[in-house]
């Protein structure tokens, strides 16, 4: 508990962070930037887990443990994404989204 700060204010901050991430995910044209936006979205939701655990069920640890797992999964995901980006860069010398549209066919 942060003295003087209600759960509403914290949730407001995380919601704002989440939508900034969404905005980045949609507008950026670069794979690495998109990856970063995804990290932002993930982090915003992780805070929510932790905050709700702390404010509503302080005698439990589920939220904390879940955020640990999310961090681990995010790390694995980032590692794979970066390796894919590097491989792609080797193949087509670009990491711009517009160059990898071939999936649509």
């Amino acid at each position, binding site marked *: *508990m*942060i*003295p*003087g*700060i209600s759960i*509403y*204010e*914290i*949730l*407001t*901050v995380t*919601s*704002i*962070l*989440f*939508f*900034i*991430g*969404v*905005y*980045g995910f*949609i*507008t*950026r*044209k*670069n794979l*690495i*930037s998109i990856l*970063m936006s995804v*990290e*932002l979205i993930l*982090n915003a939701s992780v*805070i929510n887990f932790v*905050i709700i655990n*702390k*404010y*509503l069920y*302080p*005698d439990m*640890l589920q939220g*904390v*443990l879940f955020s*640990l*797992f999310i*961090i*681990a999964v*995010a*790390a*694995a995901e*980032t*590692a*794979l994404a*970066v*390796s894919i*980006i*590097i*491989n792609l860069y*080797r*193949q087509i010398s670009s990491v*711009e989204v517009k160059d990898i549209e071939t999936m649509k066919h």
Partner: protein
Amino acid sequence: MERVIFYILALIMIVFAIASVTSRKMLRSVIYLLFVLCGIAGVYFLIDYNFLAAIQLTVYAGGIIVLIIFSVLLVHHIEMELEIAKPSKQIITTIACLLGLGVFLTTIYAHEFNVVENSLTTTTAEIGTKLLSYDAGGFILPFEVISVLLLAAMVGAIIIAKGRKLEERSQKSEDSSI
């Protein structure tokens, strides 16, 4: 006191998050993201989850950000300017995001949270015990699954990143066998 700190942290997070998703310089954008992640770690400190804050700092700030910086350096010139989306698309996206935010916030504020006043401190030992417990409510199974996932991700990352070289090598061996 904590209140002031939280507001400062919130301000830092939001400002740098916006800067991160709008900056046209790749490397700066990554550094702004680093600040946001550190701010989040600060929030964890404020609510007394020291272990989680430490994890946040080491894994995100220390690991993921470094990884992203490496990939940026591998595929970009540092000074390269990024393309940005068309203004119309930016506006539409902004409107959609604001609308979504409105929905979120009105829903949150309309809900009566059953807040429990407390000042409990969670130690690392508690977390560790819970994580490795196989009693009811223990997390041993997800813990093991995550470890397998991390191993698989590691192997996958290596293979994907080295894919071309492996191919070449196998081709070479085929050539020599012929």
